[in-house]
């Protein structure tokens, strides 16, 4: 058993901040390693593979397509559905398959974030389904999923007002830190997931905001600063992933 795991098994709080570094050596405003690849699934209209630290998620977009069951159709706009699902093997202790209360809530707020930016009025009576599978979770899986989902939506050619980029900030040992990993999430004092609409290389507005823990107003201000910085870095990687797929496609097609 690694030293880290042993620490985690202790009941009491563990030290998360060491000088100006964190448990895994990152600076307070440093993201975990991120890897994004667009268009990795054949059947889906759009897809994305994303790693964020130890998180591994896959997003698929189907649609715009016919809505089933039919009575869910909306004559004025597309119906957006979002399913956040964790694989049973994605966490330390096996997760029972199927939606639990946490996934239902995450699916709801994530869908709402995307609904606010997808130009759904262009596709009346149709449905856009976004499925995100968490293959491995390590804090911040909802933000990883939203980042993958936005790339998958672009890959599917769904028109949006801009890109949705999501990132969490935590409070660990009294310090605000960007992109918390599992230990900072479990033993930290607060967790604040954000998603922003980024348009024209600028953060325009907040599409998702939740929080649990205990923070002051000033700490929230710092959280916004960190989250916006992190979001701009992720946004770049999202764009690169999309560009990469388009470039390789255009090369293949001559």
């Amino acid at each position, binding site marked *: 058993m690694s030293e880290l795991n042993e620490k985690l098994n202790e009941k009491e709080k563990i030290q998360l901040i060491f000088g100006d570094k964190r448990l895994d050596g990152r600076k307070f405003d440093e993201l975990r390693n991120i890897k994004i690849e667009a268009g990795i699934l054949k059947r889906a209209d759009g897809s994305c593979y994303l790693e964020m630290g130890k998180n591994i998620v896959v997003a698929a977009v189907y649609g715009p397509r016919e809505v089933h069951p039919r009575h869910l159709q909306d004559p004025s706009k597309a119906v957006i559905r979002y399913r956040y699902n964790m694989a049973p093997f994605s966490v330390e202790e096996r997760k029972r398959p199927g939606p639990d209360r946490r996934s239902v809530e995450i699916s709801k707020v994530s869908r709402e974030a995307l609904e606010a930016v997808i130009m759904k009025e262009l596709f009346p009576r149709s449905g856009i389904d976004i499925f995100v599978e968490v293959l491995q979770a390590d804090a911040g899986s909802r933000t990883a999923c939203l980042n993958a989902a936005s790339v998958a939506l672009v890959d599917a050619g769904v028109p949006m007002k801009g890109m949705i980029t999501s990132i969490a900030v935590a409070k660990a040992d009294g310090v605000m830190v960007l992109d918390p990993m599992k230990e900072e999430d479990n033993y930290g004092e607060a967790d*604040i997931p954000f998603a922003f609409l980024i348009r024209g290389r600028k953060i325009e507005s907040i599409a998702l905001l939740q929080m649990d823990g205990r923070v002051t107003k000033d700490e929230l201000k710092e959280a916004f600063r960190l989250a916006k910085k992190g979001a701009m870095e992720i946004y770049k990687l999202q764009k690169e992933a999309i560009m990469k797929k388009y470039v390789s496609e255009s090369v293949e097609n001559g």
Partner: protein
Amino acid sequence: MVEDILVDIKKDYVLSKLKEGERIDGRKFNEFRKIEIQTNIISKAEGSALVKLGNTQVIVGIKMQVGEPFPDTPDKGIIITNAELVPLASPTFEAGPPDEFSIELARVVDRGIRESEAVNLNKLCIEEGEKVWLIFIDIHALDDDGNLLDASSLAAISALLTTTVPAERFEVGDNYPLPVRDLPVSVTSLIVDDKFLVDPSRDEVSVGNRFLTITTDQDDNVVAMQKSGSYLLKEDRFFEILDVSISKARKIRERLKDI
């Protein structure tokens, strides 16, 4: 969900009033409806409260049981929060398993109580690793005239404040009052264009589900937040809402001190 057609008709009226800087019921933008709190209304429950927020009515009942602790917190009691949006409370509610709205409601109420550490869970251990108290917070909506969330949070903390741990019934010692040490208060705002209204009524919500809920503790720390509804929020608007939420929560908290 069945469409609530009557409310839809009021949408234009709400918006036209807002343009004149007024709310349809004459309230100020940062004004709550009349709050009434009645406690100990269900004698079979360990604690209970009925909260009226204008015409919105919610009952919260607290039941307690002896159970096994979670492996990672062997010496702490457990809080379980549930919300039932029964069809009696609104023409748009349907019977059946909890939908995403009732799950979200229960989870946001739960977060406020849990994160403010309002209930001292350390004092709810009977036998470490074996027996702890389970606290069931059951939210039962009676009449949804808007802002069930704040009514439910208020009812939940009010009910907890009047809860007696039923130790005698479970033959584990003498009854004692549930140790409550903080008073989390949630404030929900409805965002309409460049304005926001606290404690939105059902008719006001007809303009669209665009909510931000901020729960604060007695030291003005933020302990829970939830942006709910598909809309985009500006950062400076967020901080305006935060200030109003903190000051409103302070006022509402005074009411809880009388319980």
